[in-house]
């Protein structure tokens, strides 16, 4: 019996390791494929150069790094207030019966494939922007709005969990002191749940930066550094997905190098999220 137990333990350990092993393999692979071209181009040329013409030997991804950041910031500006408002209502104000219906519904948003978001964006949002705001419609704004909606489930459900973790005793104390329910939420629950909410936002950010399909469909993928929210932009993920099919040689390596930059950005975000939740 004992040996069987040990055996199963070992098998599970092996399986667990294979998950970590695949991460290690991916990391090694993209660095092996991408690093040579970064070194050849020069790190600063690669990151701060804005001329991307890979088949002609120009590898500068500044425009894409900036576009990824702008689109993500836009998504947060639009999505976070909505998500927080929704989380506060569901965690603090809504009757439990309503929460039981609404929370799973919001989580369902996360299950919609990104290509569907992209399609809706192209069919509904892009023509609206083109007609009422001008420009080609496929724009930074369209991408930010679509991503803002896509990060809602992540931010809402983690924020709700964070607020639910604040002990009820605190709330009762605050109410007993004569604070209104809104004052309790603003002065007590939100500060107490701060680290959880920040984690929620960072994870939402990671989702926004990593999203590819929906962004390709609505952002227009132009290569310039955007000067207005109606300009078309190309994010790092879109660059890889658009060109990988045709790329060979140095072009292919440059796309892996784009992946390295993306990988590092997402690693930084995830580490930040882990550190913030770890620090009580």
């Amino acid at each position, binding site marked *: 019996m004992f040996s069987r137990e040990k055996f199963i333990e070992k098998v599970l350990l092996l399986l667990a390791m294979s998950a970590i092993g695949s991460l290690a393999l991916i990391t090694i692979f993209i660095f092996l494929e991408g690093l040579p071209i970064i070194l050849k181009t020069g790190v600063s040329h690669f990151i701060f150069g804005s001329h*991307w*013409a*890979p*088949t*002609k030997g120009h590898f500068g991804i500044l*425009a894409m790094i900036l576009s990824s950041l702008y689109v993500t910031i836009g998504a947060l500006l639009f999505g976070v207030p909505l998500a927080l408002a929704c989380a506060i209502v569901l965690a603090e104000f809504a009757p439990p019966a309503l929460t039981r219906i609404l929370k799973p519904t919001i989580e369902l948003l996360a299950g919609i494939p990104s290509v569907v978001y992209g399609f809706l964006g*192209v069919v509904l949002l892009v*023509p609206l922007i*083109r007609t009422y705001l*001008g*420009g*080609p*419609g*496929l724009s930074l704004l369209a991408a930010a709005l679509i991503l803002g909606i896509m990060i809602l489930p992540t931010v809402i459900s983690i924020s709700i969990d964070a607020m639910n973790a604040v002990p009820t005793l605190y709330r009762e104390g605050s109410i007993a002191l004569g604070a209104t329910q809104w004052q309790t939420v603003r002065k007590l629950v939100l500060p107490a749940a701060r680290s959880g909410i920040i984690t929620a936002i960072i994870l939402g950010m990671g989702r926004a930066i990593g999203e590819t399909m929906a962004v*390709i469909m609505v952002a*227009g*993928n*132009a*290569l*310039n550094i955007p000067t207005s929210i109606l*300009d*078309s932009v*190309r994010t790092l993920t879109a660059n890889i997905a*658009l*060109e990988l*099919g*045709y*790329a*060979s040689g140095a*072009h292919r390596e440059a796309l892996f190098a784009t992946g390295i930059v993306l990988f590092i950005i997402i690693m930084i975000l995830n580490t930040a999220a882990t550190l913030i939740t770890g620090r009580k």
Partner: protein
Amino acid sequence: MKSSINNAIAGRPGGWLCLGLLLVVCLACGRSERQGQTLTIAGSTSVQPFAEKLAEVFMKQRPALLINVQGGGSSAGIMAVQQGAAQIGASSRELHGNEKKLHEIVIAWDGIAVIVHPSCPVDDLPLATLRQIFAGQIKDWAALGLKPHGMHVITREEGSGTRTAFEELVMDKMEITPTALVQDSNGAVREIVAHDPYAIGYISCGLVDNQVKALAIDGVLPTNANIKKNSYKLTRRFLFVTAHQPTGLAQDFCQFVLSPKGQNLLEKEGLIGVH
């Protein structure tokens, strides 16, 4: 009934093993049966729909044969032939450098049509103006004598055969402007132009439909007759590429494609035959 089957499998330790073995055996059978009768064509997404059509008809004549048609782009197709992963590579651009060692067969001609929204009053563009538009030197429709409005230039992604051909035929070593919108298929470009009255893009002639208007270049419309006469300037060749003079299945298929039946099929689908 269903649960009893589940029990039967889960109850006996060998159950899953048997199932697994069965699967492996099935896969193995499937493989060996088809070996030696498979032809793989990989390459240009512009050629792919036509190659699929040809393969479908050819497979009807030779039921034992399996033809795999894969996309991936001209460069990927040429590389697949060089590495032996595919017997035939489909290319919508010319071969250059090292690739010239390969054997090429012209299967058809195709025009690249410059398209605008049907409501756009422009009908004809000089080649030089077209170059200026895509190089970003002309940014406003006012330069063409229309009501002032920003031009929305739409191009294909770097490495695409249609883009490479367009650059060779139009751009004369100039680069396409970085402000141009980039889409990853002929269909996506057409879709945007069909809904945006200020857009201008380019797609394969075979895919022009009544949602968009194809412009004349230097006064010549991209009609089949004009492409055949070679008077339309934006004309490219569709190639099948093989490592050596094709033999066996690849040879049979190429002969079929070049036969009157194959060529008629291509013409019916919107390409221009080679004759």
